[in-house]
Structures are given as C-alpha cells and as structure tokens.
C-alpha cells in the first residue's frame, strides 16, 4: 500500500519490477514534489480512509504517515526536514494515544493533540474548497467588464505621481540592505595605505638620527581610533621595512612585543 503513495511522488518510479530500474530508483534523491508540505500529505492520506474528514482516525492516519516515511527511507528517498519533524511528532502522538494516561503528566492529552490535528486538516481542506469557490466566481475582465472607454471631457490636466506600497517597501529594503551585498572590501576611509606611509616616512627619516619608536611616526589623525591606528601601524611598519630594504633605515626590537625602533642609516 505505501508503494502507492511513493509512486505518486515521482513518476520515474513506476516500474519497480526489474532490478535495474529499482537500483536506479533507489539512487535517486527525490524530494516530495507534488505535496505542499507534511500537512498536505496528511490530508491526501486521510482521503484514502474514505470517511468524512471529521471521522478520520488520527491514529490510523499517524500510522499511514509513518509507513510512508519508512517506505521513503527504504527507497532512500530523501525527505525534507519538515516531513521528518512531522513524523517524529506523529510517533509521539501515537504513543500518547496508545499508552494509558499518566496522571502526573502535565502536557496536553493525546486526544487534545489529535483533535487539533483533525481541526488543522479540516481547516486546510476548507480553505482549499474556499479558494476554488472564490476562483469559480465571475471575475472582472473575464466574466464582467468595466467601462472600456473612459472619458476625457475637460482639458484640465493634473499630474499625479504613482507609487505603490510595494515600491516603497522595496526601495526601503534596497537602501537598508545595500551594504549586505557589497563584495568584501575595506572601508577606504579607515585604511592608511602603504604608499601614504612610505611618502610620509621618506619625509621624516632625514631627521631620525636617534633611535625612535615606530609609533611616533604615525600621523596625528590616525592615533586615537583603534581601527585607524591599527591600519596606520601596519602600513607604517611595512613602509619602514621597505626603507630598510632600500638601505635607508635601520630597525630593531629588543625582545618579542617590545616597541619597534628605527633610525636613519
């Protein structure tokens, strides 16, 4: 019986007869197309009981659903997480319905849970029927019509500007999320480039006859804000290395994490 349901999921799985087809079928990862979520699947299963939705056996339904999930597992059909969550919940419901009531138990009874599920199914069904009835109504532009010609009587022209609530919300969202999609790049205004540092250092090293700390060479405006300070320190250090390479500067550090010192060579 569960095979019927599975077969309903994916047409590729019609021929379970020969082994090859079965292997192919089993290696397929099928999502549960055609069903709009676990509740929809439950509603479909409940129709197989061929009773009024109000008289549907929730216990029976839970079993049908669990069989379905078992069968899907056996066929290695990958079920979306919400189907598995529903399965776990139905297994719990089933145990609540079958086991004697524990008087110390605080949670809702199995019957209450079952009644709510029945209500949800009935409501979904009712909404489906209502949607169909709504669409079956006469519709503007299909069954009845508005005036084809609207009249321009007066020459007086007013200009109005149109914008919809959707335009408004999308515009706002666009502004507020603009930053989310910027490719990763640094905010330029917080970056002190090595070129800048090199330029500055070249002007300063002429006076660096004594050993002096690297931090003294940071530009005034880049000393307070930690972000700026970090950037300026890094580029000044890199610039200093560059000048050492060129033989114009000496650097030393007495021990790890001690201040870096430099002077003119």
């Amino acid at each position, binding site marked *: 019986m569960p095979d019927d349901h599975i077969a309903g999921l994916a047409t590729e799985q019609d021929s379970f007869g020969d082994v090859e087809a079965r292997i192919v079928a089993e290696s397929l990862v099928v999502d549960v197309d055609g069903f*709009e*979520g*676990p*509740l*929809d699947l439950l509603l479909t299963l409940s129709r197989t009981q061929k009773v009024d939705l109000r008289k549907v056996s929730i216990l029976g339904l839970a079993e049908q659903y669990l069989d379905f999930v078992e069968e899907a597992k056996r066929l290695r059909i990958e079920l979306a997480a*919400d189907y598995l969550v529903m399965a776990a919940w139905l297994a719990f419901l089933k145990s609540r319905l079958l086991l004697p009531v524990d008087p110390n138990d605080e*949670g*809702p*009874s199995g019957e*209450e*849970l079952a*009644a*709510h599920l029945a*209500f*949800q199914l*009935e*409501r*979904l069904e*009712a*909404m*489906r*029927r*209502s*949607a169909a*009835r*709504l*669409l079956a*109504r*006469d*519709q*503007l*532009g*299909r*069954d*009845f*019509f*508005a*005036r*084809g010609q*609207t*009249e321009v*009587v007066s020459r007086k022209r007013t200009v109005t500007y149109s914008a*919809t*609530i*959707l335009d408004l919300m999308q515009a706002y969202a666009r502004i*507020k999320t603009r930053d989310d999609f910027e490719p990763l790049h640094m905010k330029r205004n917080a970056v002190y480039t090595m070129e800048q540092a090199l330029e500055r250092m070249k002007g300063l090293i002429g006076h660096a006859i004594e050993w002096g700390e690297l931090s003294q060479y940071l530009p005034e405006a880049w000393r307070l804000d930690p972000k700026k300070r970090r950037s300026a320190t890094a580029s000044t250090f890199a610039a200093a290395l560059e000048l050492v390479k060129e033989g114009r500067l000496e650097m030393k550090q007495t021990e790890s994490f001690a201040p870096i010192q430099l002077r003119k060579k």
Partner: protein
Amino acid sequence: MSESTEDSNIESLFDAPPMAEQERMIEAILFAVREPVTSKQIADRLPHGCEVPEALSYLRKRYEGKGVNLVKSGDGWAFRTAPDLGFLMQKETVETRKLSRAGVETLAIIAYHQPTTRAEIEEIRGVSVSRGTLDMLLELGWIKLGRRRISPGRPVTFIVTQEFLDHFGLETSRDLPGIKELRAAGILDNRPPPGAVGEVEDEGGEEGRDQDDMFE
C-alpha cells in the same frame, strides 16, 4: 464658462438639484471611470446637499436586469456588465496569468481569516510562505497591509483590498462564498495548538516593538 452656468452654480449652493438630476449626475460620474468611486468621492463632486445614498439606490434599481449593472464593492460603486453576458466580450478578456495553488490558497486564507499574519498563513497551510507569493498578491493589488497585531512581536497583518472585492464581484468580504458556514463551524476560529500557551508567532520578539528598533 458662460454666465448661466455660474448662476446655476450659485443657486446650487443653496438648493440641491432634484433627485432625478442627482441620479443623472452620479450616472455620468460612474460611467466615466473604470474604478469604483466611493459615495464620499461622489458627494465631493456633486453640488452641496445631494442625497447620494438615495440617488444611488434609485440608480441601482434603474439598471437592474439591464446589460450593465450598478454594483457595490467595498466602499465603492461602479458600473459593470452583467455577468451572464460575458461570452459577448471575449475579445475584451484580459489574459491574466494563472495564480499558482500557493497563491490562490494564500489569497483565500487572507480573505477568510483577515487580518492575518504570515505565521498564521503558514500554520494553516503547513508550509512556509514561499518567496514571491505575498509579493505577487500585493502587486496585483488584491492584498494590503493591515494594522499590526497587538500581540508580542506586533506582527504585520494582511487584509484584502477593495480591488480584490471588485475583481471577484463581492460587495463586502462578508459575501465571500461559504464564509458564514465556515464561521459557524468554527473553522475560522483562531485555535492555538494545545499546550502552546504563551507561545507566539515566530516573528515574535524579534522585531517591530517600536519603529526604532525595527531596523537591523
């Protein structure tokens, strides 16, 4: 314009035109436009002192059973062709893209449960509202934002529009097919799942307590 019109304008400040004339005026106003016009909008255009509701009811009666009818949708009034004559207008039919099942169901849920939140729509359908569904319904002008729900998280609600009523030829949303029966049967009750005391919509708490903390 000529003097005579000015005179009659001045007169109209004091005396409303006779009922038959009011009826004619409303007829002309409603005929000239496609969209439903509210009684208030009509009254704003008519001379002072007109009895718009009364004139409308005469007009409606006059068009009863004719090829064109005066219909009410929401607050608005509009002339529409009689639905039984739709077959004559096939050339005028606008091909609208068919709404998907998700779209139609979402629309129905909003219409029957309004004002309703996205969480409630999801609870009823048992799946999350997919991207583009509400978007499309908003774009069609069939739904709009209602008041925020006064519950934790103050979630946004959705309601149907006058355009929706106009499109489906409904006078009010109380005229939705079967809504009385559904209400009587308790289907439209907001029944929280048992044991879910104090549990809130999933938008809850995250957002929107105040305009200020609504961002980010």
